[in-house]
């Protein structure tokens, strides 16, 4: 599904990713953990195609194709989805208008027919119910005035509607209360499939109790410094990152 080789990325002459390599197989749920500032969000932005970064070396292959030259919208159409650590408020853009525009834009890019309004409404309603999102919220401008947890749920709602094949969840658990965490995790688990992979960035083992990962990767100073199975997360929870700071140097 996703293969990253020796990725070197700067922002304003500051090295953020420093020869990062990572492979996520079809259907795999990979967790990424690592100290603050180690470059986890940067990695997610670079995969999604944010402009601010200078990629100096390396490649990101999505199903064998290097996506580094593609626009963010083209990557999205190929199945990349990023649930933002800090979802943005977009005043003046009604949530439903937004959802319909993005769904149809992706369908168009894939040469699929646009959704009819009733079909669209049905899908939104179903996804909203699963994630226990109030219909009232869907009537407001996108994310405007939503609580931190509501914004995170809205990200997962979008993910459910867009049915991407490579999903990045950047600290989706932060800001969620215990019930919301369970609801969101169930929403994610429901999407797990043979042809869909996940990159789950988190600081807490707790999320991984709900979304059980196949692999766990430790990032430090812009590199993956250790990879293992789900038990690695427990080990980190117990011992912290002290051992890994040295490894990256």
């Amino acid at each position, binding site marked *: 599904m996703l293969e990253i080789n020796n990725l070197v990325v700067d922002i304003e002459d500051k090295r953020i990713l420093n020869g990062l390599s990572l492979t996520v197989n079809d259907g795999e749920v990979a967790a990424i953990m690592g100290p603050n500032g180690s470059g986890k969000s940067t990695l997610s932005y670079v995969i*999604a*195609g*944010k*402009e*601010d970064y200078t990629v100096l070396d390396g490649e990101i292959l999505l199903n064998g194709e290097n996506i580094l030259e593609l*626009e*963010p*919208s083209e*990557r*999205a*159409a190929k199945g*990349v*989805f*990023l649930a*933002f650590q800090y*979802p*943005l408020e*977009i*005043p*003046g*853009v009604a949530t439903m*208008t*937004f959802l319909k*525009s*993005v769904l149809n*834009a*992706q369908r168009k*890019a894939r040469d699929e027919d646009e959704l009819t309004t009733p079909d669209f409404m049905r899908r939104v309603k179903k996804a909203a119910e699963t994630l226990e999102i109030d219909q009232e919220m869907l009537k407001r*401008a996108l994310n405007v005035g939503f609580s931190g947890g509501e914004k995170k749920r809205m990200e997962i709602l*979008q993910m459910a509607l*867009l049915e991407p094949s490579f999903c990045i969840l950047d600290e989706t658990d932060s800001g969620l209360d215990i019930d919301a965490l369970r609801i969101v995790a169930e929403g994610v688990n429901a999407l797990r499939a043979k042809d869909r992979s996940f990159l789950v960035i988190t600081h807490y083992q707790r999320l991984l109790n709900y979304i059980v990962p196949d692999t766990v990767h430790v990032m430090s100073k812009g590199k993956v410094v250790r990879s293992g199975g789900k038990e690695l997360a427990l080990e980190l929870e117990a011992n912290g990152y002290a051992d890994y700071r040295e490894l990256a140097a």
Partner: protein
Amino acid sequence: MSVITPIRTPAEAGLIDLYKVVRNTLPGTKATLKHRDEAFAVIEAAGLPHRRVEDWKYTDLRNLMQEAPPLAARPHLAETDPAIAKSKAFAAVSGARVTFVNGHLVTTEAIPEGVEVTPLAEALTNGHPLLARMGGPEVARDNAAVALNSAFVADGAIIAVADGVTLEEPLVLRFINTGTKAFATSPRVVLAMGDGAALTLVESHEGPGGVGYHSNSVVEIVAGSSVDIAHIRLNAEGDRALALSTLMVTLGADAKFASTGVVAGGHVSRHQVFLAFAGERSVATIGGATMLAGKSLADTTLVVDHRVPGCQSRELFKTVVDGEATGVFQGKIIVRQHAQKTDGQMMSAALLLSEGAAMNNKPELEIFADDVVCAHGATCGQLDDELLFYLMARGLPRPEAEALLVQAFLGEALEPIALEDVREELTDMVASWLAGRAG
């Protein structure tokens, strides 16, 4: 002592020659002629306003008006019918219609009871009691565009709405310009609203592309107390047009006035709003959305005069500038010494979509009372890269992502329009402007 002979530009010299020729042929009594002469004297003495005149700093009319085209004659039926047939603005909006072609009133349709429409040419010739109330608020005196209109006005309408009359459907004023060679029009409409009267006034201004015509319209609203007026104005003038327009409003007590203007046409345009509160406890909301591209210029100039206590004014203007176009917003809130408890807020926000785009914002407060709440603000920026990335990461190609953000930006200025079909038509206009921009 030396006598300074001002150097006339070709347009100024042309206007002087033109006025000499037309002053005796334009309609009206001796008193009308006196008004015309007084108005033209303002232009003759000072010339066309230029950048060293404070109010015209960003819209140098002397420089922008390159000639004085002939006044458009009253058109023949053979010209009016095809021009009216081509008019698209608010075609789907049902209501009363007063249609002007090249500034001359040609038809009135479905005028409801309690409303009286008199062609201005007729009113000027025969006299009309409402002529005495023409002239606009004090803050509009000596304004060059109004003076030009007063000097050259050939027709228009006096519309009287009787006390207590509520119009269920809007009153649509269509100003249709037509012609293949440059011409000038100066229509004037006076709307007198009786106490307690209510209506929605919809104004559209359209004209041919590729023709450097000049339009200079003035709409005056003189309102009694407890009126409720919604006003929507569309500038869809031709792409070479020099379009001046003025809205003058005097409100009585307990009045409600809401105006939204959309600028989607014209090469050079300037829309002026002069509003005076003459009665207490009135509320005015004035706003607009302007879309600019190419090398065009659009100026919105606004003066709100709080002459009495306890009134509220709200202004929100949005401007989107693309290409090498220039936007201008000049807004002034005046609070007179006795106008205590005034609440005035004015905001102008601009979005620049290209390197060559420019915006001049000049908001001002002139406050002589001490117990007031007034604020003004102006912003000018580009599309937010973070928001663009968010939308693109969801799959919207860049042009669509930009269009969605621009639409949201301008949409806020259209929100106050209560008439759904009118708001939708204007929203579609924004969308098609954006689609045109994407190519």
